[in-house]
């Protein structure tokens, strides 16, 4: 069943904004949602990459840096015009942009911590603020954020990254409580170790160690996460909000 076929008070067509859409999980999600018939709005910092992806999947390119508030604000005004001109409504946001810092605690300065907080927390905060205003016009919408297995488990060398991801989980639950009255659902996915450019620097030995510690004995693939994000964005999860779903191949099992 296509998502367009089973949503209540169906808009002419639903658009989903995906940040970090040109690689890893965001890219897998953009392709998945385009195949499912959504109007896909793809974001990344690189205009060239963004435009190329939009052309290849039939979406709309909206390049901006999620840590630049002025650029983000301008982008949402552009998005508003695009939605109006194409008789679309913003139904979903998936915030997949963000880097991962792996560095010993005593080598991590406050600027590096602030960068993690800007990308993951301030980015999610502003994107949710502007997206939810568009969703509230139709009294429906879904926001999905990305946490990480390290938010709950912690990780050596990832104090800054884990702090930012833990904040995402608190944000998810609070946003869900505040935006539910406007018909907007908010959920998050906490991926385990996913085979994306974020872990490109891991050695084969390190990859092997991670695979062995995972119940399913493999690394996750971007599509593993994209499928769950697509579910949370769709009306199939219409009664779910404020949830953080672990998608980690059993990595967190004791």
């Amino acid at each position, binding site marked *: 069943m296509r998502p367009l076929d089973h949503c209540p008070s169906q808009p002419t067509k639903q658009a989903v904004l995906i940040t970090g859409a040109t690689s890893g999980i965001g890219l897998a999600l953009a392709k998945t949602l385009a195949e499912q018939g959504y109007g896909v709005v793809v974001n990344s910092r690189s205009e060239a990459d963004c435009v190329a992806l939009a052309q290849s999947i039939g979406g709309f390119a909206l390049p901006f840096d999620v840590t630049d508030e002025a650029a983000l*604000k301008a982008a949402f005004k552009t998005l508003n015009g695009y939605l109006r001109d194409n008789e679309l409504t913003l139904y979903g946001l998936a915030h997949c942009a963000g880097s991962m810092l792996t560095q010993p605690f005593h080598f991590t300065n406050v600027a590096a911590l602030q960068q993690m907080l800007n990308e993951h927390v301030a980015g999610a905060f502003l994107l949710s603020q502007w997206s939810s205003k568009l969703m*509230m016009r139709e009294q429906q919408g879904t926001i999905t954020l990305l946490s990480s297995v390290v938010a709950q488990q912690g990780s050596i060398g990832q104090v800054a990254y884990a702090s930012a991801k833990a904040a995402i989980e608190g944000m998810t639950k609070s946003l869900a409580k505040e935006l539910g009255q406007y018909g907007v659902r908010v959920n998050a996915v906490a991926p385990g170790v996913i085979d994306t450019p974020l872990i490109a620097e891991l050695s084969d030995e390190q990859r092997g160690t991670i695979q062995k510690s995972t119940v399913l004995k493999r690394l996750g693939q971007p599509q593993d996460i994209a499928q769950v994000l697509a579910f949370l964005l769709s009306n199939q999860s219409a009664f779910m909000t404020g949830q953080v779903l672990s998608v980690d191949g059993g990595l967190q099992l004791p």
Partner: protein
Amino acid sequence: MTNNERLVAAFASSLNIEASQVVDELEYNTIPQWDSVAHMVLVAALEKEFDVMLDMDDIIEMSSVKIAKEILAKHDVAF
């Protein structure tokens, strides 16, 4: 409809009040219907009606019907 009529209709619908109550002097939090929850419903309705995107500062500042008109005027909506 004039822009003023459109604004009055958006206020009345969002706050669930009579159109006659929507006067310049009506202020945020002076009637039970215009609370923080209804305020965001109102913002969404005004944005949709006038095809504008209000900044967060606008949302905080929009404390009366009169000021709402002034804010919308900044976004090229004439009253």
